[in-house]
Protein backbone atom coordinates (compact mmCIF):
# COMPACT_ATOMS: atom_id res chain seq x y z
CA UNK A 1 0.00 0.00 0.00
CA UNK A 2 1.26 3.48 -0.92
CA UNK A 3 2.34 5.54 2.06
CA UNK A 4 0.80 8.92 2.43
CA UNK A 5 -0.98 11.50 4.56
CA UNK A 6 -3.99 13.36 3.15
CA UNK A 7 -5.54 16.40 4.81
CA UNK A 8 -9.24 17.23 4.85
CA UNK A 9 -11.61 19.40 6.89
CA UNK A 10 -14.73 18.33 8.70
CA UNK A 11 -16.27 21.18 10.68
CA UNK A 12 -13.77 22.20 13.36
CA UNK A 13 -11.71 19.12 12.71
CA UNK A 14 -8.64 18.80 10.56
CA UNK A 15 -8.41 15.15 9.52
CA UNK A 16 -5.06 13.58 8.64
CA UNK A 17 -5.78 10.35 6.76
CA UNK A 18 -2.73 8.10 7.02
CA UNK A 19 -2.14 5.14 4.74
CA UNK A 20 0.52 2.44 4.44
CA UNK A 21 2.92 0.95 6.99
CA UNK A 22 4.12 3.25 9.75
CA UNK A 23 7.53 1.99 10.83
CA UNK A 24 10.84 3.51 11.90
CA UNK A 25 11.63 4.57 8.33
CA UNK A 26 8.48 6.66 8.02
CA UNK A 27 7.25 7.53 11.53
CA UNK A 28 9.20 10.81 11.49
CA UNK A 29 7.08 11.94 8.50
CA UNK A 30 3.91 11.19 10.46
CA UNK A 31 5.32 12.95 13.54
CA UNK A 32 6.16 16.10 11.55
CA UNK A 33 2.74 16.11 9.84
CA UNK A 34 0.90 15.82 13.16
CA UNK A 35 3.00 18.45 14.96
CA UNK A 36 2.75 20.87 12.02
CA UNK A 37 -1.02 20.42 11.74
CA UNK A 38 -1.81 21.06 15.42
CA UNK A 39 -1.29 24.85 15.63
CA UNK A 40 -3.53 25.49 12.58
CA UNK A 41 -6.70 23.76 13.75
CA UNK A 42 -9.07 23.80 16.74
CA UNK A 43 -9.15 19.97 16.72
CA UNK A 44 -7.16 17.19 15.06
CA UNK A 45 -8.19 13.69 14.01
CA UNK A 46 -5.77 11.08 12.70
CA UNK A 47 -7.55 8.55 10.51
CA UNK A 48 -5.89 5.13 10.68
CA UNK A 49 -8.22 2.82 8.74
CA UNK A 50 -5.71 2.50 5.88
CA UNK A 51 -2.71 1.77 8.12
CA UNK A 52 -1.66 -1.86 7.66
CA UNK A 53 0.99 -1.86 10.39
CA UNK A 54 2.29 0.49 13.06
CA UNK A 55 5.38 -0.02 15.24
CA UNK A 56 6.36 1.63 18.51
CA UNK A 57 8.00 4.60 16.75
CA UNK A 58 4.68 5.28 14.99
CA UNK A 59 2.84 4.99 18.30
CA UNK A 60 5.39 7.40 19.81
CA UNK A 61 4.58 9.95 17.05
CA UNK A 62 0.86 9.70 17.92
CA UNK A 63 1.60 9.93 21.66
CA UNK A 64 3.63 13.09 21.09
CA UNK A 65 0.80 14.65 19.08
CA UNK A 66 -1.69 13.67 21.78
CA UNK A 67 0.47 15.22 24.52
CA UNK A 68 1.01 18.46 22.56
CA UNK A 69 -2.73 18.75 21.90
CA UNK A 70 -3.55 18.02 25.53
CA UNK A 71 -1.21 20.73 26.79
CA UNK A 72 -3.25 23.23 24.73
CA UNK A 73 -6.66 21.72 25.59
CA UNK A 74 -7.08 20.81 21.94
CA UNK A 75 -9.22 17.78 21.03
CA UNK A 76 -7.15 14.96 19.46
CA UNK A 77 -8.72 11.70 18.33
CA UNK A 78 -7.67 8.57 16.52
CA UNK A 79 -10.24 7.76 13.90
CA UNK A 80 -11.33 4.27 12.80
CA UNK A 81 -8.06 2.40 13.43
CA UNK A 82 -7.57 -0.69 11.26
CA UNK A 83 -7.79 -4.04 13.09
CA UNK A 84 -3.99 -4.36 13.34
CA UNK A 85 -3.56 -0.81 14.69
CA UNK A 86 -6.42 -1.35 17.13
CA UNK A 87 -4.77 -4.56 18.36
CA UNK A 88 -1.49 -2.72 19.05
CA UNK A 89 -3.31 0.12 20.86
CA UNK A 90 -5.41 -2.27 22.95
CA UNK A 91 -2.60 -4.66 23.87
CA UNK A 92 -0.51 -1.79 25.26
CA UNK A 93 -3.69 -0.32 26.82
CA UNK A 94 -3.20 2.89 24.89
CA UNK A 95 -6.98 2.79 24.44
CA UNK A 96 -6.96 4.23 27.97
CA UNK A 97 -4.86 7.18 26.76
CA UNK A 98 -6.20 8.05 23.31
CA UNK A 99 -9.73 8.96 22.38
CA UNK A 100 -10.57 6.41 19.71
CA UNK A 101 -13.66 6.98 17.57
CA UNK A 102 -15.18 5.22 14.59
CA UNK A 103 -16.43 8.52 13.14
CA UNK A 104 -16.36 12.20 14.01
CA UNK A 105 -20.14 12.82 14.33
Amino acid sequence: MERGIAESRQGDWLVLSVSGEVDLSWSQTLRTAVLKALPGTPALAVRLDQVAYIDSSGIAALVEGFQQARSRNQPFVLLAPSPSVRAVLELARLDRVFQIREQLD
Partner: protein
Amino acid sequence: MNSVACPRPAESARTARPDPLALIAELSQSLALSLNLEATLKLAISRIVGALDVEAASVFMADEESGVLRCLAAFGPVDIVGLELPANQGIVGRTFQSRSCQMVDNTAEDPDFTGAIDKVTGFRTRSMISTPLLTAQGAIGVLQAVNKRDLQRFDLEDRNLLRALASPLALAAANASLAASLVEQSRIKRELELARRMQRNLLPRRRRGDFPILALHRPAREISGDFYEYFELADGRIAFAMGDVAGKGLDAAFLMVRCASLLRWTGKEGQRPSEWLARVNRELCDGVQHGSFVCALAGIHDPRTGETCWANAGLPSVLRMDADGVQRFRAEGPPLGILPEMDFPEQHTCLAGASLYLFSDGVTDARRPDGSMLGMEGAEALLQAGHEIRRPQSRLRVIASRLRQLELGDDTTLMLIEGP
Protein backbone atom coordinates in the same frame (compact mmCIF):
# COMPACT_ATOMS: atom_id res chain seq x y z
CA MET B 1 40.90 36.68 -19.02
CA ASN B 2 44.36 35.25 -18.99
CA SER B 3 43.49 31.94 -17.35
CA VAL B 4 43.94 28.95 -19.58
CA ALA B 5 42.32 25.59 -19.10
CA CYS B 6 43.28 24.30 -22.52
CA PRO B 7 46.56 23.02 -23.92
CA ARG B 8 49.12 25.38 -25.31
CA PRO B 9 52.32 24.49 -27.14
CA ALA B 10 55.15 23.32 -24.95
CA GLU B 11 58.18 25.52 -24.89
CA SER B 12 61.37 23.83 -25.86
CA ALA B 13 64.03 26.03 -24.30
CA ARG B 14 64.12 24.27 -20.96
CA THR B 15 67.11 22.99 -19.11
CA ALA B 16 67.60 20.62 -16.22
CA ARG B 17 63.93 19.72 -15.78
CA PRO B 18 63.89 16.50 -13.67
CA ASP B 19 62.55 13.31 -15.21
CA PRO B 20 58.80 13.65 -14.53
CA LEU B 21 58.18 9.90 -14.45
CA ALA B 22 60.89 9.39 -11.84
CA LEU B 23 59.47 12.25 -9.77
CA ILE B 24 55.91 10.90 -9.98
CA ALA B 25 57.15 7.44 -8.98
CA GLU B 26 59.17 8.79 -6.07
CA LEU B 27 56.40 11.00 -4.70
CA SER B 28 53.70 8.36 -5.17
CA GLN B 29 55.75 5.89 -3.19
CA SER B 30 56.65 8.24 -0.37
CA LEU B 31 53.00 9.36 -0.05
CA ALA B 32 51.79 5.76 -0.07
CA LEU B 33 54.26 4.73 2.62
CA SER B 34 53.85 7.81 4.77
CA LEU B 35 52.35 7.70 8.24
CA ASN B 36 52.76 11.43 8.68
CA LEU B 37 50.80 13.12 5.91
CA GLU B 38 51.76 16.71 6.67
CA ALA B 39 55.51 16.03 6.74
CA THR B 40 55.32 13.99 3.54
CA LEU B 41 53.18 16.65 1.85
CA LYS B 42 55.72 19.29 2.71
CA LEU B 43 58.50 17.16 1.21
CA ALA B 44 56.38 16.50 -1.89
CA ILE B 45 55.65 20.19 -2.35
CA SER B 46 59.34 21.12 -2.06
CA ARG B 47 60.05 18.68 -4.90
CA ILE B 48 57.20 20.19 -6.95
CA VAL B 49 58.70 23.65 -6.47
CA GLY B 50 61.96 22.33 -7.90
CA ALA B 51 60.35 20.40 -10.73
CA LEU B 52 58.14 23.29 -11.91
CA ASP B 53 60.84 25.89 -11.28
CA VAL B 54 58.48 28.10 -9.23
CA GLU B 55 58.92 30.25 -6.11
CA ALA B 56 56.26 28.58 -3.96
CA ALA B 57 53.65 25.80 -3.89
CA SER B 58 50.93 24.76 -1.50
CA VAL B 59 48.11 22.31 -0.88
CA PHE B 60 44.66 23.52 0.20
CA MET B 61 42.10 21.07 1.59
CA ALA B 62 38.35 21.70 1.60
CA ASP B 63 36.51 21.99 4.91
CA GLU B 64 32.94 21.23 3.89
CA GLU B 65 31.37 22.43 7.11
CA SER B 66 32.82 25.92 7.02
CA GLY B 67 32.98 26.23 3.21
CA VAL B 68 36.68 27.15 3.13
CA LEU B 69 39.86 25.79 1.60
CA ARG B 70 42.55 25.58 4.29
CA CYS B 71 46.28 25.40 3.58
CA LEU B 72 47.57 22.05 4.85
CA ALA B 73 51.13 22.26 3.56
CA ALA B 74 53.23 24.93 1.86
CA PHE B 75 56.77 25.50 0.62
CA GLY B 76 58.13 28.93 -0.22
CA PRO B 77 59.37 32.24 1.19
CA VAL B 78 56.27 32.70 3.41
CA ASP B 79 54.51 30.12 5.57
CA ILE B 80 50.80 30.07 4.80
CA VAL B 81 49.89 26.78 6.55
CA GLY B 82 46.50 27.17 8.26
CA LEU B 83 45.49 30.10 6.07
CA GLU B 84 41.88 29.91 4.85
CA LEU B 85 40.35 30.96 1.53
CA PRO B 86 36.64 30.95 0.62
CA ALA B 87 35.96 27.80 -1.45
CA ASN B 88 34.03 29.82 -4.05
CA GLN B 89 36.36 32.78 -4.59
CA GLY B 90 39.73 33.49 -6.13
CA ILE B 91 41.64 31.36 -8.60
CA VAL B 92 42.07 28.57 -6.03
CA GLY B 93 38.28 28.64 -5.45
CA ARG B 94 37.69 28.57 -9.21
CA THR B 95 39.97 25.54 -9.54
CA PHE B 96 38.04 23.80 -6.78
CA GLN B 97 34.57 24.64 -8.14
CA SER B 98 35.34 23.94 -11.81
CA ARG B 99 37.46 20.88 -11.01
CA SER B 100 39.81 21.88 -13.79
CA CYS B 101 43.41 23.02 -14.00
CA GLN B 102 43.89 26.80 -14.17
CA MET B 103 46.95 28.54 -15.63
CA VAL B 104 47.27 32.30 -15.08
CA ASP B 105 50.35 34.02 -16.51
CA ASN B 106 49.46 37.43 -15.10
CA THR B 107 47.28 37.44 -12.00
CA ALA B 108 46.65 41.19 -12.29
CA GLU B 109 44.61 40.52 -15.42
CA ASP B 110 42.48 37.76 -13.91
CA PRO B 111 39.12 39.06 -12.64
CA ASP B 112 38.90 36.28 -10.04
CA PHE B 113 42.27 37.04 -8.48
CA THR B 114 41.67 38.44 -4.98
CA GLY B 115 45.24 38.65 -3.69
CA ALA B 116 43.93 37.36 -0.35
CA ILE B 117 47.21 35.61 0.47
CA ASP B 118 49.39 38.50 -0.68
CA LYS B 119 47.48 40.90 1.59
CA VAL B 120 48.28 38.74 4.61
CA THR B 121 51.85 37.78 3.73
CA GLY B 122 53.26 40.65 1.70
CA PHE B 123 54.21 38.11 -0.97
CA ARG B 124 53.52 39.12 -4.56
CA THR B 125 51.77 36.53 -6.72
CA ARG B 126 52.46 37.20 -10.40
CA SER B 127 51.53 33.94 -12.06
CA MET B 128 49.83 30.79 -10.90
CA ILE B 129 49.00 27.24 -11.91
CA SER B 130 46.57 25.22 -9.86
CA THR B 131 44.88 21.88 -10.18
CA PRO B 132 42.09 20.21 -8.18
CA LEU B 133 42.73 17.18 -5.93
CA LEU B 134 40.11 14.76 -7.20
CA THR B 135 38.78 11.56 -5.66
CA ALA B 136 35.70 9.45 -6.30
CA GLN B 137 33.87 11.76 -3.88
CA GLY B 138 34.67 14.83 -6.01
CA ALA B 139 37.19 17.62 -5.41
CA ILE B 140 38.72 17.53 -1.93
CA GLY B 141 41.31 20.28 -2.33
CA VAL B 142 43.66 22.20 -4.61
CA LEU B 143 47.37 21.95 -5.40
CA GLN B 144 48.85 25.25 -6.57
CA ALA B 145 52.24 26.57 -7.64
CA VAL B 146 53.02 30.31 -7.99
CA ASN B 147 55.50 32.58 -9.76
CA LYS B 148 57.37 30.77 -12.49
CA ARG B 149 61.03 31.82 -12.10
CA ASP B 150 62.84 34.11 -14.52
CA LEU B 151 59.57 35.36 -16.01
CA GLN B 152 58.94 32.07 -17.80
CA ARG B 153 55.36 31.12 -18.72
CA PHE B 154 53.61 28.00 -17.44
CA ASP B 155 53.34 25.43 -20.22
CA LEU B 156 51.58 22.21 -21.09
CA GLU B 157 54.35 20.17 -19.52
CA ASP B 158 53.90 22.02 -16.18
CA ARG B 159 50.18 21.41 -16.36
CA ASN B 160 50.54 17.70 -17.05
CA LEU B 161 53.17 17.26 -14.34
CA LEU B 162 51.07 19.10 -11.74
CA ARG B 163 48.00 17.05 -12.66
CA ALA B 164 49.99 13.82 -12.48
CA LEU B 165 51.35 14.74 -9.02
CA ALA B 166 47.90 15.79 -7.80
CA SER B 167 46.61 12.21 -8.03
CA PRO B 168 48.88 10.58 -5.40
CA LEU B 169 48.47 13.71 -3.24
CA ALA B 170 44.67 13.41 -3.41
CA LEU B 171 44.85 9.70 -2.59
CA ALA B 172 47.15 10.28 0.37
CA ALA B 173 44.96 13.12 1.70
CA ALA B 174 41.80 11.04 1.26
CA ASN B 175 43.46 8.12 3.06
CA ALA B 176 44.53 10.38 5.91
CA SER B 177 41.02 11.76 6.31
CA LEU B 178 39.61 8.22 6.17
CA ALA B 179 42.09 7.16 8.86
CA ALA B 180 41.02 10.13 11.02
CA SER B 181 37.36 9.20 10.65
CA LEU B 182 38.18 5.58 11.51
CA VAL B 183 39.88 6.79 14.68
CA GLU B 184 36.77 8.84 15.48
CA GLN B 185 34.52 5.86 14.76
CA SER B 186 36.54 3.61 17.01
CA ARG B 187 36.40 6.24 19.78
CA ILE B 188 32.58 6.35 19.51
CA LYS B 189 32.53 2.56 19.46
CA ARG B 190 34.59 2.43 22.65
CA GLU B 191 32.24 4.89 24.35
CA LEU B 192 29.19 2.91 23.27
CA GLU B 193 30.85 -0.21 24.63
CA LEU B 194 31.34 1.60 27.97
CA ALA B 195 27.68 2.67 27.95
CA ARG B 196 26.67 -0.92 27.17
CA ARG B 197 28.73 -2.23 30.09
CA MET B 198 27.25 0.43 32.38
CA GLN B 199 23.75 -0.59 31.35
CA ARG B 200 24.63 -4.25 31.78
CA ASN B 201 25.80 -3.49 35.33
CA LEU B 202 22.39 -2.01 36.13
CA LEU B 203 20.83 -5.43 35.58
CA PRO B 204 20.79 -7.85 38.54
CA ARG B 205 23.39 -10.61 38.63
CA ARG B 206 22.22 -14.15 38.02
CA ARG B 207 21.67 -15.90 41.36
CA ARG B 208 23.05 -19.34 42.08
CA GLY B 209 20.96 -22.16 43.54
CA ASP B 210 17.18 -22.24 43.49
CA PHE B 211 16.42 -18.55 43.11
CA PRO B 212 12.96 -18.56 41.45
CA ILE B 213 13.53 -15.72 38.96
CA LEU B 214 15.63 -16.09 35.81
CA ALA B 215 15.95 -13.69 32.90
CA LEU B 216 17.45 -13.39 29.45
CA HIS B 217 18.24 -10.11 27.75
CA ARG B 218 19.47 -9.46 24.20
CA PRO B 219 20.00 -5.83 23.17
CA ALA B 220 19.37 -5.24 19.45
CA ARG B 221 22.33 -2.81 19.34
CA GLU B 222 25.17 -1.81 21.66
CA ILE B 223 22.82 -0.01 24.00
CA SER B 224 19.39 -1.07 25.05
CA GLY B 225 15.98 0.34 25.87
CA ASP B 226 14.96 -2.81 27.76
CA PHE B 227 15.75 -3.62 31.39
CA TYR B 228 14.70 -5.94 34.17
CA GLU B 229 15.18 -6.04 37.90
CA TYR B 230 14.59 -8.31 40.88
CA PHE B 231 15.57 -8.04 44.53
CA GLU B 232 14.56 -9.51 47.87
CA LEU B 233 12.38 -7.53 50.28
CA ALA B 234 12.95 -7.64 54.05
CA ASP B 235 10.01 -10.04 54.55
CA GLY B 236 11.45 -12.68 52.19
CA ARG B 237 9.26 -11.84 49.20
CA ILE B 238 10.90 -10.91 45.91
CA ALA B 239 10.14 -7.75 43.99
CA PHE B 240 10.53 -7.88 40.20
CA ALA B 241 10.20 -5.37 37.36
CA MET B 242 10.70 -5.11 33.62
CA GLY B 243 10.67 -2.18 31.23
CA ASP B 244 10.84 -1.40 27.53
CA VAL B 245 11.50 2.19 26.51
CA ALA B 246 10.01 3.23 23.15
CA GLY B 247 12.84 3.87 20.68
CA LYS B 248 16.31 2.41 20.33
CA GLY B 249 18.74 5.31 20.31
CA LEU B 250 20.75 7.10 22.99
CA ASP B 251 17.65 8.96 24.21
CA ALA B 252 15.94 5.61 24.86
CA ALA B 253 19.04 4.38 26.70
CA PHE B 254 19.08 7.43 29.00
CA LEU B 255 15.37 7.06 29.72
CA MET B 256 15.97 3.36 30.40
CA VAL B 257 18.60 4.22 33.04
CA ARG B 258 16.28 6.79 34.63
CA CYS B 259 13.28 4.47 34.69
CA ALA B 260 15.30 1.48 35.95
CA SER B 261 16.63 3.56 38.87
CA LEU B 262 13.16 4.90 39.68
CA LEU B 263 11.64 1.40 39.65
CA ARG B 264 14.41 0.02 41.86
CA TRP B 265 14.25 2.77 44.48
CA THR B 266 10.48 2.98 44.57
CA GLY B 267 10.18 -0.81 44.77
CA LYS B 268 12.58 -1.14 47.72
CA GLU B 269 9.78 0.11 49.97
CA GLY B 270 7.76 -3.03 49.24
CA GLN B 271 4.59 -1.17 48.33
CA ARG B 272 1.81 -2.70 46.26
CA PRO B 273 2.58 -2.97 42.51
CA SER B 274 -0.30 -0.63 41.58
CA GLU B 275 1.05 2.14 43.81
CA TRP B 276 4.63 1.31 42.82
CA LEU B 277 3.91 1.92 39.11
CA ALA B 278 1.69 4.92 39.82
CA ARG B 279 4.56 6.63 41.67
CA VAL B 280 7.11 5.86 38.97
CA ASN B 281 4.62 7.08 36.35
CA ARG B 282 4.11 10.41 38.12
CA GLU B 283 7.86 10.89 38.41
CA LEU B 284 8.47 10.01 34.75
CA CYS B 285 5.69 12.31 33.49
CA ASP B 286 7.50 15.13 35.20
CA GLY B 287 10.39 15.77 32.84
CA VAL B 288 10.10 13.17 30.09
CA GLN B 289 9.96 14.76 26.65
CA HIS B 290 6.71 14.37 24.74
CA GLY B 291 6.50 11.18 22.70
CA SER B 292 8.72 9.14 25.04
CA PHE B 293 7.13 6.41 27.11
CA VAL B 294 8.00 3.18 28.87
CA CYS B 295 6.07 -0.07 28.81
CA ALA B 296 6.71 -1.60 32.22
CA LEU B 297 5.62 -4.21 34.72
CA ALA B 298 6.26 -4.41 38.44
CA GLY B 299 5.30 -7.16 40.86
CA ILE B 300 5.97 -9.13 44.01
CA HIS B 301 6.43 -12.88 44.27
CA ASP B 302 6.31 -14.92 47.49
CA PRO B 303 8.66 -17.89 46.98
CA ARG B 304 7.13 -19.79 49.94
CA THR B 305 3.51 -19.78 48.78
CA GLY B 306 3.85 -18.94 45.08
CA GLU B 307 1.46 -16.00 45.53
CA THR B 308 2.34 -13.44 42.89
CA CYS B 309 0.80 -10.08 42.06
CA TRP B 310 1.82 -7.49 39.53
CA ALA B 311 0.66 -4.46 37.58
CA ASN B 312 1.32 -4.28 33.84
CA ALA B 313 1.70 -0.92 32.12
CA GLY B 314 1.58 -1.72 28.41
CA LEU B 315 3.94 -4.73 28.18
CA PRO B 316 2.71 -7.80 26.24
CA SER B 317 0.41 -10.20 28.08
CA VAL B 318 1.93 -12.23 30.91
CA LEU B 319 1.68 -16.02 30.47
CA ARG B 320 1.10 -18.48 33.31
CA MET B 321 1.85 -22.08 32.40
CA ASP B 322 1.28 -25.30 34.30
CA ALA B 323 0.44 -28.92 33.41
CA ASP B 324 -3.15 -27.90 32.59
CA GLY B 325 -2.25 -25.27 30.03
CA VAL B 326 -1.67 -21.56 29.50
CA GLN B 327 -3.42 -18.57 31.02
CA ARG B 328 -2.93 -15.08 29.55
CA PHE B 329 -3.05 -11.88 31.59
CA ARG B 330 -3.48 -8.82 29.40
CA ALA B 331 -1.99 -5.48 30.49
CA GLU B 332 -4.47 -3.33 32.37
CA GLY B 333 -2.48 -0.10 32.54
CA PRO B 334 -1.14 2.14 29.75
CA PRO B 335 2.62 2.76 29.34
CA LEU B 336 4.39 5.01 31.86
CA GLY B 337 5.35 8.59 31.14
CA ILE B 338 2.32 9.69 29.09
CA LEU B 339 -0.34 10.85 31.56
CA PRO B 340 0.44 11.48 35.26
CA GLU B 341 -2.94 10.53 36.76
CA MET B 342 -3.30 6.94 35.69
CA ASP B 343 -4.11 3.83 37.68
CA PHE B 344 -2.45 0.47 37.16
CA PRO B 345 -4.76 -2.35 38.28
CA GLU B 346 -3.15 -5.40 39.86
CA GLN B 347 -3.36 -8.98 38.69
CA HIS B 348 -2.85 -12.03 40.92
CA THR B 349 -2.08 -15.67 40.52
CA CYS B 350 -0.65 -18.53 42.57
CA LEU B 351 2.38 -20.13 41.00
CA ALA B 352 2.43 -23.34 43.07
CA GLY B 353 3.44 -25.92 40.42
CA ALA B 354 3.35 -23.24 37.72
CA SER B 355 5.62 -20.78 35.89
CA LEU B 356 5.07 -17.17 34.89
CA TYR B 357 6.61 -15.68 31.73
CA LEU B 358 6.95 -11.93 31.21
CA PHE B 359 8.55 -10.47 28.12
CA SER B 360 9.10 -7.33 26.05
CA ASP B 361 7.69 -6.98 22.53
CA GLY B 362 11.10 -7.99 21.16
CA VAL B 363 9.80 -11.56 21.60
CA THR B 364 6.44 -11.05 19.87
CA ASP B 365 8.04 -8.93 17.11
CA ALA B 366 10.76 -11.56 16.39
CA ARG B 367 10.60 -12.71 12.78
CA ARG B 368 10.67 -16.27 11.49
CA PRO B 369 12.95 -17.14 8.55
CA ASP B 370 9.98 -16.58 6.20
CA GLY B 371 9.69 -12.99 7.47
CA SER B 372 6.45 -13.46 9.41
CA MET B 373 6.23 -12.06 12.93
CA LEU B 374 5.97 -14.41 15.88
CA GLY B 375 3.09 -12.53 17.54
CA MET B 376 1.50 -13.52 20.82
CA GLU B 377 0.40 -16.94 19.51
CA GLY B 378 3.90 -17.73 18.27
CA ALA B 379 5.52 -16.56 21.51
CA GLU B 380 3.14 -18.74 23.48
CA ALA B 381 3.88 -21.76 21.27
CA LEU B 382 7.64 -21.17 21.58
CA LEU B 383 7.45 -21.05 25.38
CA GLN B 384 5.03 -23.94 25.64
CA ALA B 385 7.29 -26.20 23.56
CA GLY B 386 9.98 -25.90 26.23
CA HIS B 387 7.68 -26.12 29.19
CA GLU B 388 8.09 -29.88 29.76
CA ILE B 389 11.75 -29.28 30.68
CA ARG B 390 11.63 -29.30 34.47
CA ARG B 391 14.78 -27.45 35.42
CA PRO B 392 14.11 -23.73 34.81
CA GLN B 393 17.77 -22.98 33.95
CA SER B 394 17.75 -25.64 31.20
CA ARG B 395 14.33 -24.46 30.01
CA LEU B 396 15.56 -20.87 29.64
CA ARG B 397 18.60 -22.11 27.70
CA VAL B 398 16.31 -23.92 25.26
CA ILE B 399 14.12 -20.81 24.92
CA ALA B 400 17.23 -18.70 24.28
CA SER B 401 18.46 -21.05 21.56
CA ARG B 402 15.00 -21.02 19.89
CA LEU B 403 14.97 -17.23 19.98
CA ARG B 404 18.42 -17.20 18.38
CA GLN B 405 16.96 -18.98 15.35
CA LEU B 406 14.66 -15.98 14.83
CA GLU B 407 15.53 -12.52 13.60
CA LEU B 408 15.39 -10.25 16.65
CA GLY B 409 15.00 -6.68 15.40
CA ASP B 410 14.28 -5.15 18.80
CA ASP B 411 15.73 -5.42 22.30
CA THR B 412 14.48 -8.71 23.67
CA THR B 413 13.94 -9.45 27.36
CA LEU B 414 12.22 -12.43 28.94
CA MET B 415 11.73 -13.23 32.62
CA LEU B 416 10.73 -16.58 34.07
CA ILE B 417 9.30 -16.85 37.59
CA GLU B 418 9.19 -20.45 38.77
CA GLY B 419 6.62 -21.30 41.46
CA PRO B 420 7.35 -23.58 44.41
